């Protein structure tokens, strides 16, 4: 195994390195300097992210267990960026008394989970995929129960770990069946010939992955875990782990499971409808913003499936593009929620009444984020959604499209509820004016800028689409 081959794993190496460096640094920080690891971690990760963008050669190693190509690199970079944003937003929270001594742990857990993400995306063999998946999940379960003294946090952790263990068991069962029917776990070697055993295996496998994307009916953990976990972890869950799972799903379905197209198109057709509708119906009546965003993210997952179903280059491109947009929109929304939670300790919708009076900038950021999620022009979300719709229309599922657009209208309703709270409703005790720390502000403004320009800057989409065409 030559050095070039090892260099293919650049992202992973960088992450592992950053973990080690962080450990070493942490040893040198004195008690009162613990909080330095916040800045150092952020800087380290920023470097990692930048490294990701350097030109890299592509290929496969470990005898095909590990594959990398421009498309996968792009996916990793997107997720790296979002993780960076999450890190930038978590400073204020980590500085609080309870967490002060365990700051570094948070970063270690997160980064190791990111490593999992990277391996999962680059997997060329189901073993690698499985390792990545678990490496992605387990640390997050730990991070979810990070707030030692909050029973809700523990509850979230338990729900996450149990359900994910359960789901991965099911996934593995499916994998074993696939193995039995194909005789290999190498994506390159597996051959499918839609027999019932394979369908069985596929469905089990799909449900395991769907659990991560929180597709109905595998979504029920989402709301509770999102609500209970520390908000930063929630934003990570809602963006990174979901995004990673989506990427993998697209890659596997379009390349590996192409022979089963008939099967998975039907599966996705059904689940997509349920996912969108259920997500919206639950989101309508949420008061706790974290739960609210949880259900909105479920609904968004439903929209993402629309792009998957076509299984064409356009479909893949629209999905990846949408995830990119969704990353910015959702992180902006969470950013605001986090900021307010940290400053005022409030996460209920009615606490946001009259926010515009006291914190106009935050309110605007929130409004843009929500409008982008709702798909309102000229924000990026509009383009993302429209391309998804284009993808589904391309494959001719106009009924599904109709259901989707009607769901989009419902979603607009509850997104407007928050806007209404911030801009229209009166409140005698609005959240007082405050100024969050620099990293948060940088992160937020970054997201907002992203929301504003991505749509107009068409090369982004065009580039993604070329990569997808190449990958088919």
């Amino acid at each position, binding site marked *: 195994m030559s050095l070039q081959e090892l260099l293919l794993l650049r992202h992973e190496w960088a992450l592992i390195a950053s973990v080690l460096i962080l450990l070493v640094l942490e040893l040198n920080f004195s008690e009162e300097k613990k909080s330095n690891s916040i800045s150092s971690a952020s800087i380290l990760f920023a470097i990692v992210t930048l490294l990701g963008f350097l030109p890299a050669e592509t290929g496969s190693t470990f005898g095909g267990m590990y594959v990398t190509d421009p498309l996968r690199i792009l996916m990793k970079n997107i997720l790296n960026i979002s993780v960076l944003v999450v890190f930038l937003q978590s400073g204020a929270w980590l500085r609080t008394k309870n967490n002060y001594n365990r700051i570094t742990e948070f970063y270690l857990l997160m980064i190791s989970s990111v490593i999992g993400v990277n391996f999962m995306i680059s997997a060329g063999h189901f*073993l690698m995929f499985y390792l990545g998946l678990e490496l992605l999940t387990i640390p997050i379960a730990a991070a979810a129960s990070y707030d030692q003294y909050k029973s809700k946090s*523990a509850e979230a952790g338990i729900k996450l770990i149990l359900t994910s263990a359960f789901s991965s068991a099911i996934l593995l069962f499916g994998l074993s069946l696939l193995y039995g029917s194909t005789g290999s776990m190498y994506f390159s070697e597996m051959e499918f010939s839609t027999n019932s055993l394979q369908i069985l295996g596929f469905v089990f496998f799909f449900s395991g992955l769907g659990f991560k994307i929180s597709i109905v009916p595998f979504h029920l953990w989402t709301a509770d875990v999102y609500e209970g976990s520390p908000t930063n972890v929630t934003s990570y869950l809602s963006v990174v782990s979901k995004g990673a799972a989506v990427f993998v799903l697209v890659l596997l379905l379009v390349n590996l499971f192409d022979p089963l197209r008939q099967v998975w198109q039907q599966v996705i057709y059904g689940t997509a409808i349920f996912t969108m509708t259920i997500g919206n119906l639950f989101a309508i009546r949420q008061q706790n913003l974290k739960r609210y965003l949880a259900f909105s993210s479920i609904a968004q997952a439903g929209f993402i499936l629309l792009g998957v179903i076509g299984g064409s280059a356009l479909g893949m491109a629209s999905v990846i593009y949408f995830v990119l947009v969704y990353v910015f929109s959702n992180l902006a929304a969470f950013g605001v929620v986090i900021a307010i939670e940290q400053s005022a300790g409030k996460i209920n919708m009615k606490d946001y009444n009259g926010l515009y009076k006291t914190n106009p900038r935050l309110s605007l950021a929130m409004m843009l984020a929500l409008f982008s999620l709702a798909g309102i022009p000229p924000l990026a979300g509009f383009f993302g959604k429209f391309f998804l719709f284009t993808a589904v229309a391309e494959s001719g599922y106009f009924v599904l499209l109709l259901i989707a657009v009607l769901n989009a209208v419902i979603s607009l309703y509850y997104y407007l509820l928050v806007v209404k709270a911030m801009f229209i409703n009166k409140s005698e005790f609005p959240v007082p004016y405050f100024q969050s720390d620099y990293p948060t502000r940088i992160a937020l403004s970054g997201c907002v800028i992203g929301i504003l320009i991505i749509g107009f800057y068409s090369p982004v989409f065009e580039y993604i689409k070329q990569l997808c065409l190449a990958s088919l």
Partner: protein
Amino acid sequence: MVEQVPLNHALIITTLMFFIGVYGFLTRKNLITMLISVEIMLNAVNLNFVFFDHYLFPGKLEGHFFSLFIIAIAAAEAAVAIAIFINLYRNIRSIDVEQVDKMKY
């Protein structure tokens, strides 16, 4: 020389095991036992892999390795899970799953 058990029987066993595990997960109220049920499910999967290697693809080791990794990871998972259970116990003085429903609707 005992004659070999046919694959179907083996698969029936594993499937049964798997769903026994599922059943346990759905019914037992104690978090630990639920965890154990998951382990049962995973072991069913392990058996699957091993059986497939043994019957269908003799000489291939993928299945065996896969099961090894599964065992390892299961251990890690269990460790984290237990840690969280303890954390929960600190907070609510119970590890009854039915009390873990503060967040709903």
